[in-house]
C-alpha cells in the first residue's frame, strides 16, 4: 500500500483509546466487570415500552428534524427551563446529538479552532483531550488535588487550587471544560467553586463547556449546581446532558447541548454537516420519558429521585467492601463511579514488564488474577499528572446486586492467595 493512503493530520496520534483496550479484555463473562460505565440494571420499563410503541408508528421510522425531534426538544426545554428557572427556546437553544459524546464533539468542532487553548481539569473523561486536539486546539491541564488536612474520605477531598487555576487562563484561552458530577472521582463542584470558575470565565471572556451527564445522580446532602445559571454565564456556557445516563440506556446514544442561540447555532452547523439527524424512534421514546418525569419532579416516584436513592445503597455497599479488603475508596458525592486508592494493598507488580503506569498494571493484574475489572485512573490524566494518580483505580457501581455480590466475594477473598 502506498503512503498516499495514510491518515489525515488531524488524527495523528489520536488512535489509542483506553476503552478499546479494556472493554475487550473485560468482555470475558467470567470476569466481574466494574470497569466501563454502563448499567447492568434494567432501564425503567416505560422507556422501553415507549421505544417499542414509537417504532410501530410509521412516521417515527423516518427522518425527523435534524437539530432534534420536536417532541424531544420541547420536553427538554420544559425540564431544563424548570431546573434553570428560565425560558429555553426548544429550536434555537437546544441541539440533540448522538450521546453526550456527540455533544462534546459538536461543541469542540463548532467552537474550538486552531491555536485555541482549552483548560481541562484532571482527571477528565478521556475524550476531552483528543477532541480538543482534533479541533486543532491546545489542551491546558490542571489537576484536582487531594487536600492535606481534614479528609472526609469522599470526593469532596479533591479541590482546584484557585491560584493555579487562575494561572492557566490567558488571552488564548477559548474555553474551560468542567464535568460535574465528575467522572471518575464523583466530585460535585460546589456553588463557590463554580463561582470561582465563572469569575475567571467572565474576566478572560472565555466559554465554558459543562458536561453534566450525571446531573441527576446526586446523593443525599448534595446539590447539583448548573454553572450556566450563575450571573453572566448563560451566554457563554454550553451544558451537555445524556439520555443514556439519565434513563440508564447508554445504548441509545442520545444526548443534548443546551445554550444560547449564538453558540448553539454553530453546533447545529456541525450537526448538519456530520450526521444530519439523530434516530427518530429513540428521540420519541426519550421525550416520553421526560414528559412522564417532568410531572413527577421532586417526588420520590420521579426516576431522577428514585435512581440516585437506589444507587446510594450500592455506593455505600461498594465502599464498605472495598474498605474491608484494605483499599481506600473516596465516597462519591454524585455519579456512578468510585475512585479507589490501592496503595495500602502494597501489591508487588514488579514481575510485570510493560512500561506502563502502576494503575494500568494493577488493573491488568486484577483482571487476570482476581477476575475483577476496573479502569485505571491515569487514563484520565495527562503525562505530567500520571505520577500523582497511578495508585487509583475506578470502579463502576451501577450494577445489579448479583454483580455486586460477585465483586464482594472476590474482595472478601482478596487477602487469601
Amino acid at each position: 500500500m502506498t503512503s498516499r493512503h495514510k491518515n489525515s493530520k488531524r488524527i495523528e496520534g489520536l488512535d489509542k483509546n483506553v476503552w478499546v483496550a479494556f472493554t475487550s479484555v473485560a468482555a470475558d463473562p467470567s470476569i466481574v466487570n466494574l470497569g466501563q460505565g454502563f448499567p447492568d440494571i434494567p432501564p425503567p420499563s416505560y422507556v422501553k415500552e415507549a421505544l417499542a410503541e414509537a417504532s410501530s408508528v410509521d412516521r417515527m421510522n423516518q427522518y425527523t428534524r435534524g437539530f432534534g425531534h420536536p417532541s424531544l426538544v420541547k420536553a427538554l426545554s420544559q425540564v431544563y427551563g424548570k431546573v434553570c428557572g428560565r425560558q429555553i427556546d426548544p429550536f434555537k437553544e437546544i441541539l440533540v446529538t448522538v450521546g453526550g459524546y456527540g455533544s462534546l464533539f459538536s461543541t469542540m468542532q463548532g467552537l474550538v479552532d486552531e491555536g485555541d487553548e482549552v483548560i481541562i481539569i484532571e482527571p477528565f473523561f478521556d475524550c476531552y483531550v483528543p477532541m480538543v486536539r482534533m479541533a486543532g486546539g491546545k489542551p491546558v491541564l490542571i489537576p484536582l488535588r487531594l487536600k492535606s488536612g481534614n479528609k472526609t474520605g469522599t470526593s469532596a477531598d479533591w479541590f482546584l487550587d484557585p491560584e493555579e487555576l487562575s494561572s492557566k487562563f490567558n488571552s488564548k484561552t477559548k474555553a474551560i471544560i468542567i464535568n460535574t458530577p465528575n467522572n471518575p472521582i464523583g466530585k460535585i463542584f460546589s456553588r463557590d467553586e463554580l463561582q470561582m470558575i465563572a469569575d475567571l470565565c467572565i474576566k478572560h471572556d472565555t466559554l465554558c463547556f459543562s458536561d453534566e451527564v450525571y446531573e441527576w445522580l446526586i446523593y443525599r446532602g448534595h446539590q447539583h449546581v448548573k454553572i450556566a445559571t450563575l450571573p453572566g454565564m448563560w451566554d457563554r456556557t454550553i451544558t451537555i446532558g445524556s439520555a443514556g445516563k439519565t434513563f440508564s440506556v447508554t445504548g441509545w446514544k442520545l444526548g443534548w447541548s443546551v445554550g444560547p442561540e449564538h453558540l448553539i447555532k454553530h453546533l447545529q452547523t456541525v450537526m448538519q454537516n456530520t450526521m444530519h439527524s439523530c434516530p427518530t424512534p429513540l428521540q420519541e421514546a426519550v421525550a416520553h420519558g421526560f414528559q412522564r418525569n417532568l410531572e413527577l419532579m421532586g417526588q420520590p416516584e420521579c426516576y431522577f429521585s428514585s435512581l440516585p436513592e437506589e444507587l446510594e445503597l450500592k455506593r455505600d455497599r461498594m465502599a464498605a467492601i472495598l474498605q474491608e479488603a484494605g483499599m481506600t475508596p473516596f465516597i462519591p458525592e454524585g455519579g456512578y463511579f468510585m475512585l479507589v486508592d490501592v496503595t495500602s494493598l502494597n501489591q508487588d507488580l514488579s514481575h510485570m514488564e510493560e512500561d506502563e503506569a502502576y494503575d494500568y498494571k494493577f488493573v491488568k493484574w486484577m483482571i487476570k488474577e482476581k477476575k475483577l475489572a476496573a479502569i485505571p485512573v491515569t487514563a484520565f490524566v495527562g503525562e505530567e499528572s500520571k505520577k500523582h494518580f497511578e495508585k487509583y483505580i475506578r470502579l463502576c457501581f451501577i450494577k445489579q446486586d448479583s454483580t455486586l455480590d460477585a465483586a464482594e466475594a472476590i474482595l472478601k477473598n482478596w487477602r487469601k492467595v
Partner: protein
Amino acid sequence: MSRRIHARRTEGIDKNVWVEFTQLAADYKAVNLGQGFPDFSPPKFVQEAFCDAVNGGAQMHQYTRAFGHPRLVQSLATFFSRVTGHEIDPLEDVLVTVGAYQALFCAFQALIDEGDEVIIVEPFFDCYQTMVKMVGGKEVYVPLRPKVEGSLSSADWTLSAEELASKFTPRTKAIVINTPNNPLGKVYKTEELQMIADLCIKHDVLCISDEVYEWLTYDGNKHVKIASLPGMWERTITIGSGGKTFSATGWKVGWVISSGHIIKHMKTIFQNCVYHCPTAAQEAVARAFEREYELFGSPESYFQQLPAMLHHRRGKLASCLQSVGLQPIMPEGGYFMIVDISSVKVDFNDDSTKDESYDYRFVKWLTKEKGLATIPVSAFYSPEHAKEFDKYIRFCFVKEEATLDAAEQILRKWRQGK
C-alpha cells in the same frame, strides 16, 4: 465575546438545503415529494426485528461494540462477501456509522487533509461539498452531461473521458461517486466505472463510493460495485445505508466497507466523534440482513419487492408529469426523478426570492402557491455549474400511491390554469 467565537471550519457551510426546504414543506403543509424518505412504513419483518431487539434483554439498551454491533458487522460481512466475491473481515473491514451521512463524514475527516483535491461528480448529494470544505480540501467538479440535448433518460448522462482525466492532478486524494446517483438516478455501467478505476489506479487516488440506493435499479440495470473491479478493493470506501435499504431512514444506521488499512483511520475519527451507535437499531438491521441473506434473489426478498414497487411508482409519477406537459428524465435507479421546467412560464411574484436561482424560486413558489414540495436541482451542483442546471427540479417517488395521487391533482389543477 469580543473575538470570533465559532471555529473557522463552520464558515461557509451553515446553509443547508434540507433544513431550509423541509421547514418550508412543513410550514405550508405541502404534499411532500421533496426530501428523500418513504412516507410508508418499513416492511413488517423490519419493524418486528426492531421490536424484538427492544424487548431483547438488558444488553440491547446498553453500549455495544464501538465500531459496530457484532451481530451487525457479521451479517454485513457475510452478506456483502457473497455479493462481491471478496472475503470481508467483519471486525477489520467494516465500520458502522450513524447513517451513511456519518460514514461520508468519517471518510473525509480520516483521509482528506488541508489542500488535498477531491473530485466530485455532479450532480452530487450536497453534503459531499460541505464535508470537503469542512476539512479544508479543495473541491474539483466534473459534471455528468446529457449526450444528446433533450435526452429523457439518466442513462444518457455521462462523463467525458477527457474532461474526467483532466481533473486528476498530483494533489488529487480522492474521487467521490454515487451510484445509483441522487438526484439524477443514473446507474453507472461497468465500463464507466472501469474508466474511473483506471484513473484511480494510475494516479493512486482513493474512491469514495456512495451506494446507498444499491438495491433500487430498474429496467434490468445492474448495480456494479467499483470496489469489485481489479485493483480497487484496497482504495475504495463503499458506503451503505440501513435507512435506504430497509425504508427506515429514521434509524440512522449506515456502514462503510473497505480495506482494513483505510477502515482503521475511519475508526480513529469515529472513536473521537460519537464512539458508539445505538445498539437496538443495529441489532434490528442485523436481523433484517440475515433474513435477506436467506431470501436473496427470491421473490420474497425485500431487495426484489421494493424496486418492483418503486418501478411502478416511477412510472406513475412520470406519466403524471408528462400528462401536464412536464418532461421528466427517467432514472435507471434510485427513487428520485429530475424534471426539466424550462418550458414552464411562471410569474413568481415573490420579492423575497428575487436573488435566488431560477429553480430555487420555482420550488419555493410551487410549495407556497400550490402546496407541492420538491427540491431545486442546482443545490446538487457546484457554484461554477449551478447556472447551467437551474432549470430542473427533483421529485421523490418513494411515496404512497395516495401521495402521488395528491401530487397529480395539484399538478393538473395548476396546468389547467386553476
